[in-house]
């Protein structure tokens, strides 16, 4: 069992580059290297890939939530001029195996449904034709006979459904995918001794990343070599891409995956296996390259990327001094029809399940259920955004019920800055933090007291103004244990999550960095160039960045879980260290000085303390590449200048037991958001009067791009809180399959300005002290905003337990509250 508290003998780290050194490039507002190509329309997105003689695929999708496929008649489709291939589930099963699944026991999902469909939008037939228009025409000519089965749409019904309503009967007699119970610390004892217990039922509805670019793939099959080449706008191809080869029934070296720019992901393209397998299946059948790009309906109904969908029953125990002592919850999570990442999103949540607070014990009962919906994937936060919502909602509930001050209560319960590294009850470690500091910065930036006065004035005028606060964690840098540690039997117990970088300096002194993960709308080229420029005192303009395919890829896990900047910084630092050593060796012969007497300065290598005695990196590079005979006859001193380095997780341990998961997500960012809103009680509209966002992601490589992530993540969190929800009816029909009714935030839905504050508490474990920053905004905005709306409506006594709180939902809550109090709008 893990005991919560400060760790007295902290684990030794591998940090080489300390955070307290003077830095020249890191920390500057360098303009992004990626931008010019995007600004002139020369990004290279998946639909920009065109291969000679390429055909196009379309997918016929199930209109039913749950049905047996009785027969498929493809005759009319095949007869249409321009149609190349029409592939049913039975055809596909001859050529492909099940799609990758990381649950154990596994849940079988096919790229084209075999025998049964389990959600609206599931592929039933793949059509390949000369162009997309013909492929869609042909799909419409396919005749499918279905025998309807009972559809399960409500997650509570899923627990009790039996018989034909069971989605995966081979896995058991019901739709419970997993049911697990966890106890970390003395939960029952703390609740028995509690002075107060606060309870709430909370609802976090299903939403998704919904990037503007859908998922897609262009595949070709070379019969001569038996090898597939697949372009896809997903990630993790240098990590688990070989599972796509398995699905295609070829050896891993018979598949090369080529990355492209991704038009946004937000988790949804974390690991795109289905589109890749569909395009490859089509290419092998057609004997031609095949492009398959999801349309928006394909993407919304079947991209395997819906986010968490949960109902929580939460209890919080407090002692007589109003210190939170224990948290206990039962959660039901609707995973949809399949289970690709198993209980990973709940494993993730255990990394920060007590938030920034000194809660000593946690009890968790988790039901994961199957329903006839699109399966869950990753969505910015990977489950921990819901954990944050749960914690901050129950904190606000305690504040309201016990009539406490929301600021003082949080401050009194925070882990103190001197208590790091801090172990939480689940066993995970928080490396560093300053939570009161973030709170204070937010209070000051907002002029909290000033807004409280304005709020009082507004209330006397009959206006509903509210101030929200949320203090949340942003876990960074996953180790892979979260994906399997909640399995009864671990299954494939992956423990690696590396990232690599390769650096080549050519004979003229220009550098090329190869990254082993794709460009995802983050700024990997900018980050990598800045770190290398810092290391070598080079001009970042002399550094270019490319992305390796899987044939040339080194271990790389890719962007996700707010890990990439931390990890690629470690990889570049490692590779640069090797390059620097070689540069110094060559320079030492040119300068006739010992390597240890040399230093890097302004793109040169010089003798310490001798300002004129130096050679440029370019001169050394030319020497290293072209003039071997000018150097000593040392077999270790080979021609050229290149290095690769694979950086492993900076601090992770194995799970010890079901009550101690070890260190698995320790690089802990933090944020404090304070929105000020006004609610129109007649319409349920929420408008923003102010918004302050304080983030602590340690050392910032580029403050401009961190601000961009904070603003963009916050916008997405506001969408989650107010607008976004995939709505299924009781028959499992998805009611909003386009952006006409699945609402993404527009500028008019958002604060005119998000005022950002940065606190810098560097990690002692990562290079330069960098922490993750990619997910934070979405992980804190929902509870902050709901807190503000509830505060605005406090005179009416409205409690909000559900997101999104759409205008109609808010009106219903207001009506209910008014009915109780006898007032009306």
């Amino acid at each position: 069992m893990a005991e919560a508290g400060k760790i007295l003998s902290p684990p030794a780290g591998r940090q080489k580059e300390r955070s307290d050194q003077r830095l020249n490039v890191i920390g500057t507002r360098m303009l992004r290297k990626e931008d010019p190509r995007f600004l002139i329309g020369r990004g290279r997105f998946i639909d920009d890939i065109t291969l000679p003689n390429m055909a196009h695929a379309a997918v016929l999708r199930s209109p039913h939530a749950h049905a047996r496929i009785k027969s498929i008649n493809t005759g009319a489709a095949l007869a249409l001029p321009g149609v190349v291939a029409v592939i049913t589930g039975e055809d596909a099963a001859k050529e492909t195996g099940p799609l990758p699944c990381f649950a154990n026991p596994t849940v079988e999902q096919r790229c084209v449904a075999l025998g049964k469909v389990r959600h609206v939008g599931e592929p039933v037939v793949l059509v390949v034709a000369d162009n997309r228009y013909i492929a869609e025409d042909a799909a419409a000519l396919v005749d499918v006979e279905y025998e309807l089965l009972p559809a399960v749409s409500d997650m509570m019904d899923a627990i009790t459904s039996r018989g034909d309503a069971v989605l995966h009967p081979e896995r058991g007699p019901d739709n419970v995918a997993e049911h697990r119970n966890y106890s970390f610390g003395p939960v029952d004892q703390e609740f028995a001794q509690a002075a107060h217990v606060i309870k709430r039922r909370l609802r976090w509805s299903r939403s998704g990343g919904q990037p503007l670019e859908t998922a897609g793939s262009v595949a070709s099959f070379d019969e001569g070599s038996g090898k597939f080449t697949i372009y896809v706008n997903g990630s993790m191809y240098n990590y688990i891409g070989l599972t796509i080869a398995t699905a295609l029934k070829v050896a891993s070296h018979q598949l090369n995956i080529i990355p492209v720019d991704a038009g946004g992901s937000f988790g949804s393209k974390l690991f795109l296996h289905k589109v890749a397998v569909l395009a490859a299946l089509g290419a092998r059948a057609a004997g031609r390259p095949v492009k398959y790009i999801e349309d928006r309906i394909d993407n919304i109904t079947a991209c395997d990327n819906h986010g968490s969908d949960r109902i929580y029953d939460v209890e919080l125990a407090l002692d007589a001094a109003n210190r939170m002592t224990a948290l206990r919850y039962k959660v039901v999570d609707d995973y949809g029809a399949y289970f690709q990442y198993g209980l990973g999103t709940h494993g993730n949540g255990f990394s920060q399940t007590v938030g920034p607070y000194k809660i000593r014990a946690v009890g968790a009962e988790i039901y994961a259920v199957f329903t006839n919906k699109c399966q869950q994937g990753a969505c910015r936060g990977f489950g921990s955004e819901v954990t944050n919502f749960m914690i901050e909602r129950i904190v606000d509930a305690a504040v309201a019920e016990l009539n406490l001050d929301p600021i003082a209560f949080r401050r009194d319960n925070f882990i103190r800055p001197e208590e790091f590294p801090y172990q939480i009850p689940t066993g995970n470690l928080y490396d560093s933090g300053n939570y009161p500091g973030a709170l204070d910065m937010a209070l000051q930036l907002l002029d909290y007291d000033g807004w409280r006065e304005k709020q009082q004035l507004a209330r006397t005028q009959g206006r509903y103004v509210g101030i929200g606060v949320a203090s949340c964690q942003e876990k960074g840098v996953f180790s892979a244990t979260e994906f399997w540690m909640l399995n009864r039997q671990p299954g494939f117990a992956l423990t690696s999550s590396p990232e690599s970088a390769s650096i080549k300096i050519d004979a003229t002194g220009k550098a090329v960095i190869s990254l082993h993960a794709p460009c995802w709308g983050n700024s990997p080229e900018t980050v990598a160039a800045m770190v290398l420029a810092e290391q070598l005192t080079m001009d970042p303009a002399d550094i270019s960045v490319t992305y390796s395919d899987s044939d040339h890829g080194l271990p790389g896990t890719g962007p996700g879980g707010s890990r990439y900047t931390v990890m690629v910084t470690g990889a570049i630092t490692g590779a640069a260290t090797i390059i620097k050593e070689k540069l110094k060796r060559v320079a030492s012969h040119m300068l006739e000085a010992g390597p240890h007497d040399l230093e890097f300065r302004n793109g040169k290598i010089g003798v310490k303390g001798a300002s004129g005695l130096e050679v440029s990196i370019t001169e050394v590079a030319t020497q290293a590449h072209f003039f071997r005979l000018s150097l000593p006859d040392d077999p270790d001193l080979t021609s050229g200048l290149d290095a690769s380095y694979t950086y492993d997780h900076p601090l992770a341990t194995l799970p010890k037991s079901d009550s101690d998961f070890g260190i698995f997500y320790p690089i802990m960012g933090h944020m404090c958001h304070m929105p000020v809103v006004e609610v129109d009680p007649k319409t349920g509209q929420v408008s923003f009067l102010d918004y302050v966002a304080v983030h602590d992601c340690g050392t910032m490589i580029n403050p401009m791009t961190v601000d961009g992530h904070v603003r963009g993540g916050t916008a997405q969190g506001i969408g989650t809180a107010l607008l976004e929800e995939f709505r299924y009816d009781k028959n499992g029909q998805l009611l909003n399959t386009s952006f006409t009714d699945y609402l993404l935030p527009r500028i008019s839905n958002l604060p005119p300005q998000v005022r950002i504050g940065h606190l810098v508490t560097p990690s002692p474990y990562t290079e330069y002290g960098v922490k993750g920053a990619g997910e934070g905004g979405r992980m804190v905005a929902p509870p902050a905003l709901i807190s503000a709306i509830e505060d605005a409506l406090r005179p009416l006594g409205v409690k909000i337990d559900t997101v999104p709180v759409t205008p109609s939902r808010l009106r219903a809550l207001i009506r209910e509250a008014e009915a109780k109090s006898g007032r009306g709008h």
Partner: protein
Amino acid sequence: MNGSMDNQDVNITVNGRSYKRRIEPRLLLSDFIRHGIGLTGTHVGCENGVCGACTVLLDGLATRSCCTLAVQADGRQVETVESLGRINNLSPLQRGFWEMHGLQCGYCTPGMLMLMTELLRENPNPDRDTIRARLNDNICRCTGYEDIVNSVERAVELMRGESSRP
């Protein structure tokens, strides 16, 4: 359905260059631009006119190319992102987006640039509210829009200094 209407001859001018093609009447303008003549800077996001990623200028007016048939552009002028500045000579609007971090993944960016090109031609000195009102036409999933507004304001400054061309 395919072949139910005869193909038509069109002459569409894109970025000042005339393209004479024989096309299916149902061909979307976005597909004509991207795949017919290979200008892949224009992107398709939602395919029903909501997001504006596919925005081009049709006779100077911001238009959803995913909801426009290519035959509707016959005899007309289309402007796409490729008509703006080039890599070593970015236009003030592109430069503004670069300097103020007006893009992250870059997918909505061409549509945003064309929408703002229309605005800046109408009004070379828009205030913040005017920029925000026009930006409400298009969706960006990455930035939260604030840096796009800052980018357009920066472009207005640059236009004053350099030229009046957005």
